């Protein structure tokens, strides 16, 4: 696959705080990527640097082979939607769509109209008077209708309810199937978004801790429950992500079990359960579940 974004040794410091620490990765052209991690892990900063809205302290980033900073040719092919987007005071929903239509060469009016109807976006309302969910809906409309070659969505559905989020996933997938392009989606709702993702990048405390094919990642951890002595026999020499015990019964979450290992565990009377992507990431990024990660 061709790399549409290349980041090399990217570091961003704000004073003494290192928000992004020596991160190197590439993004595949035509894939849907998940950029995951806890609040404050550095996801938004990384997106700002990737889209040229902020300068890297060290290292460099290339989009379409060029630096994104003050580069109109690159930025016209890139769409960045973020929750914290600030609009001019008098801007109404319809002004946002009109400006987007100007800016993005592949903008599609029919799709935009369909999205407006689906999300019932109140286009005559001022952006600053809209609810969080309504503002998110406008962002999602711009993200999809722009049909930009490279689209970044930073927590795109803050305030959207479960029904609206489902519409978002369905419409994203539908339009992606017809017009394949590159997406980078940051979210807390990992299990919800997981089936749509092809690649997963996980940021923890500014560092890239996982960069993998989403579906292969899913197979990497298994929870075994059973007699402590049997469980420990399987745990020996393997990476243990989590371990709990009650009396003689133990539960461990392990990585690197083969299908053969799992069959042996089952034959030995152990209960084996695959670990969801969300659980795996929670365990890999500090364990303690906050309301943000467990949503």
């Amino acid at each position, binding site marked *: 696959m061709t790399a549409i974004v290349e980041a090399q040794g990217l570091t961003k410091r704000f004073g003494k705080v290192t928000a992004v620490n020596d991160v190197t990765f590439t993004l595949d052209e035509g894939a849907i990527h998940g950029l995951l991690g806890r609040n404050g892990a550095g996801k938004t900063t990384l997106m700002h640097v990737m889209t040229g809205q902020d300068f890297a302290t060290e290292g460099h980033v290339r989009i379409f082979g060029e630096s994104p900073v003050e580069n109109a040719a690159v930025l016209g092919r890139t769409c960045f939607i973020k929750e914290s987007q600030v609009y001019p005071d008098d801007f109404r929903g319809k002004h946002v769509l009109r400006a987007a239509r100007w800016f993005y060469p592949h903008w599609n009016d029919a799709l935009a109209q369909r999205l407006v109807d689906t999300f019932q976006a109140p286009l005559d309302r001022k952006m600053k008077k809209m609810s969080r969910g309504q503002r998110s809906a406008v962002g999602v409309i711009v993200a999809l209708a722009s049909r930009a070659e490279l689209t970044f969505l930073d927590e795109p559905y803050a305030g959207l309810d479960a029904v609206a989020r489902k519409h978002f996933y369905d419409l994203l997938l539908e339009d992606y*199937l017809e017009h394949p392009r590159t997406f980078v989606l940051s979210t807390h709702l990992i299990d919800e978004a997981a089936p749509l993702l092809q690649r997963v990048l996980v940021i923890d405390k500014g560092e890239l801790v996982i960069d993998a094919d989403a579906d292969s990642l899913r197979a990497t951890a298994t929870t075994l429950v059973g007699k402590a002595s049997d469980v420990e026999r399987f745990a020996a020499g393997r990476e243990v992500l989590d371990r709990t015990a009650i009396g003689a019964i133990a539960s461990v979450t392990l990585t690197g079990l083969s299908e053969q290992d799992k069959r042996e565990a089952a034959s030995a*009377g152990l209960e084996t359960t695959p670990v969801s992507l969300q659980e795996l990431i929670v365990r890999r990024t500090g364990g303690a579940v906050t309301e943000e990660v467990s949503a």
Partner: protein
Amino acid sequence: MDDGRPIFLQIAESLESQILDGTLLEEEQIPSINALAAFHRINPATALKGVTMLVDAGTLYKRRGIGMFVAEGSRERLRESRRAEFRDAHIRPLAHRAQELGLTSAQLHDMITKEMNR
């Protein structure tokens, strides 16, 4: 579709099940990658991976420019391999549990016969 295991495996298994129960016949065309992705609400790369796995196993084959088809003899081969999986995944643990509970093989056989005749 999500029971925690890789989705491409679940896609491959669901196609296999449709071949086994006759929903998909031998020499019949299977849905396109995009149709599978849209139906299961998954990334098309994942759907492709599941289908590719079945092509590699000889269950499906590709007709250039047309699509994927169920190979002749697939159903019988799948039945054989599912039976072997059934033995490993169910019969072996069952035998193990039966021994723990002090059941003889005749007693276990008896229980199974009763269940199957219910």
